[in-house]
């Protein structure tokens, strides 16, 4: 995104709308730090610039990925849906993507607030790869990898900054302790945050298969979350 300094009246109205604080006042006009801007479109959509000084420049590769991963209204080609993820557990009642004995894992980089660069995402992806995971092909983050087997990304995307990007994969439930240990270690080596989520089938008696693993690892778990209530049809039937 750009702000035309000749047109800008210096009202500062756009500044609070930037989620990563990339807009500041310089010489009495608003200015966007182009390297920090994630192309989310929030300032253009909402700041209601009185002189229409905010404008969208043409996005060319690799900057195009900033919009895909930051603007909630941009549709990702891989998933066919808006946002950065996939249908994941939301349609698990009809897809059977996550069955008993497995968990769906999503590592959401940059959330909340900070945004993330792909060199940090690659650090975690490479560390997690030792578990032999297969990154979700429909997730746009996976499409930026040059070698999904090792978690290596294409070199030209590494410096790109996005509001969030998700590493998504399925894991054998029994491998959760190893995953937690890896994430504890590698999370100390990144310059941003990630939010971690795990999806699981609920046992017929109502118990949660992941609970003992979370407790054993001494991890915090939220008292709120998402519940798929099995109203989708046709229902996926597990063997």
């Amino acid at each position, binding site marked *: 995104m750009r702000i035309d300094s000749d047109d800008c009246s210096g009202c500062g109205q756009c500044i609070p709308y930037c*989620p990563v604080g990339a807009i500041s006042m310089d010489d009495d006009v608003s200015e966007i730090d182009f390297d920090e801007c994630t192309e989310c479109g929030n300032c253009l959509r909402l700041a209601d610039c009185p002189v229409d000084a905010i404008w969208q420049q043409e996005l060319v590769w690799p900057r195009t990925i900033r919009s895909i991963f930051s603007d909630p209204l941009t549709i990702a080609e891989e998933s066919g849906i808006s946002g950065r993820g996939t249908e994941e557990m939301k349609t698990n009642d009809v*897809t059977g993507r996550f069955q008993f004995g497995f968990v769906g894992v999503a590592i959401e980089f940059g959330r909340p607030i900070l945004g993330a660069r792909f060199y940090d995402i690659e650090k975690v992806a490479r560390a997690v790869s030792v578990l032999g995971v297969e990154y979700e092909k429909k997730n746009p983050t996976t499409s930026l990898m040059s070698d999904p087997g090792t978690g290596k990304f294409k070199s030209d995307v590494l410096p790109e900054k996005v509001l969030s990007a998700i590493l998504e994969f399925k894991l054998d439930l029994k491998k959760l302790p190893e995953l937690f240990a890896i994430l504890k270690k590698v999370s*100390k080596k990144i310059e941003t945050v990630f*939010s971690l*989520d795990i999806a699981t*089938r609920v046992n017929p008696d109502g118990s949660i298969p992941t609970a003992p693993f979370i407790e054993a690892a001494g991890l915090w778990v939220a008292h709120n979350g998402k*519940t798929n209530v099995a109203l*989708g049809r046709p229902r996926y039937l597990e063997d």
Partner: protein
Amino acid sequence: MTHTLHRVGTEESLSEDYVVLIMPSKDINHEGSGSKMRRFFEMALEAGAIKIGDARLGNEYHQGGVEKVIENVEDRAVVHAVFKQKDSLIKLLTALKEADLGLSVVVSGLFDQVGQCCRNVGLEKHTINQSLGRWGRTDKLPTQEILQLNTMCGHGMVTVGLIEEVIADVKAGRCTPEEGAERLFHPCMCGIFNPFRAARLLRETAAATTA
């Protein structure tokens, strides 16, 4: 896309915050799903939804009104309704079970409360998604008060700067907490930000920082 999962808050505050999402699955049941999602919107509003939204096309302000949100829904959409109380959620889940639209339905909220609602209505908890919190440079994150408001838009469009500005406006009496909460709703394109809960949080935060 886990934009409703990581809502930060106390049990008391989150007891006024439920998001229901309905979506088709590509190549399984997406054909003709647009009309089913329109029906969902109507049922949600009848049950007492305080906001509805469409992750594909934007919220009511972006689309030009609630009617437009309902009218414009497409077959591949992901749509939501926000509730401030459990009774309304039970009403909607009862109606959805009866209507049997055949699309996947996900409820975001306190697990024990959502579980109770499922039991009341006779619905199964099929799959859950748990948040294991924030990892890495958490020292760079703002206060819990700010996070509670920011995380109600999982895409991060309700910015720290805007939240701070609105808190200052409420504190100075330039707007009411309800007006401030509605202003914070605007950037949340999916329409999942809960302005009822936000108004309460703004009132509490403004009072705490004034005292």
